């Protein structure tokens, strides 16, 4: 397949000038040129990116999930060979996935966080077990890519001992008047991946 693509690429490169000369002759233009765009930054980034760290990211959509919330996007990424952790590592990119085991999900609880977590874990996983944990939104089981990506589990804040949650803000999608207005900040004791006592646990994987 790749051989065919390379062949087609060479064919087009060799013949594109011919196409242009033909068009030049047909349309009687004096100058005819073409530009290739959108790839310079991409190519440079593939060379210069030294590490990819995902925090609280779902990396797979199980077949028995109640609903595919990404409507196939996540599956496309997960199944594309060039997006695999092995392919990224081969490009020289150090891949680390960070997940939290701080919040259990349960529908039989008076704790609002556990109720919210359960209502998030259940549709993503298609099931809910008593020991299922995550960051309150993304279950731990989905937060990792396969090796050689590194898996890092953060449990609690090193300063307060509070469990690590998914985010430190509540987005405000209804505020369309000011698209750059900051989201609602959660209280300081609401610890997330970006908090002072949690960040050092994964920032050492920055390469």
């Amino acid at each position, binding site marked *: 397949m790749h051989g065919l693509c390379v062949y087609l690429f060479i064919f087009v490169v060799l013949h594109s000038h011919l196409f242009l000369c033909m068009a030049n002759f047909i349309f009687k233009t004096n100058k005819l040129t073409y530009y290739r765009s959108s790839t310079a930054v991409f190519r440079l980034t593939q060379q210069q990116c030294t590490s990819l760290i995902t925090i609280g990211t779902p990396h797979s959509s199980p077949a028995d999930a109640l609903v595919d919330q990404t409507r196939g996007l996540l599956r496309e990424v997960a199944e594309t060979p060039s997006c695999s952790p092995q392919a990224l590592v081969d490009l020289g990119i150090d891949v680390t996935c960070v997940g939290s085991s701080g919040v259990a999900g349960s529908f039989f609880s008076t704790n609002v966080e556990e109720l919210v977590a359960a209502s998030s874990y259940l549709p993503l996983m298609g099931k809910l077990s008593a020991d299922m944990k995550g960051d309150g939104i993304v279950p731990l089981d989905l937060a990792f890519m396969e*090796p050689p990506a590194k898996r890092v589990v953060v449990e609690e804040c090193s300063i307060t001992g509070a469990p690590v949650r998914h985010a430190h803000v509540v987005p405000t999608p209804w505020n369309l008047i000011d698209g750059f207005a900051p989201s609602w900040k959660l209280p300081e004791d609401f610890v997330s991946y970006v908090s002072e006592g949690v960040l050092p646990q994964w920032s050492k994987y920055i390469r």
Partner: protein
Amino acid sequence: MPRTFSFLILALLHGANAFQSAFQGVGRPVATLFSTTTAGTDTVVETPTTTTASTTSTATSTTPKNKKVSVLLCPAQFCVPQDYQELFENLRNTRAKDNDDLPEIGTCRVAELPRTEWIKVARQLPTRNFFDATLNAKQTLDWYFAGMEKALSEIYAEQGTDASVCIIGHSIGGWVARAYLGGLGVYVLFCIIFVKE
């Protein structure tokens, strides 16, 4: 005549797609294109008291203390750049305190996406692909990739094109970054310009 011209454009665009597919394999050893992952699972459980967790990962590498790394942050859904200033601040503080594991932090940027950009996903709502759950990242998230490229351009403008870049993806931003690095977000577009005198 216009039909001939259209054919030429289509031929070039088709060729561009082939180029992109081919390009995804370029730069990697041929053997790796067909390789399968056989490494074992390696999970590091970080605890507040375990700041130097051991790992047996083959991908682990040390970071030179004098290395400088810029950071691109890919935000979560509906989050905006200002939401991540706390992260950048804590990152610089961590580096300033003691952390020898952390390289010097260069330019930090968030993919510049106002929350209004997320409305563009709605373009896919009335499509068959949406109902079949077969959406295409390139078509659906082109605006996100553009935001990433804008921020990356700013990093390279400030730090030079030899700058090392770490991409941090929060929530959905993690797999979008993965898609971008894997080439799912790139259009190779040939534009033909006529100048008639």
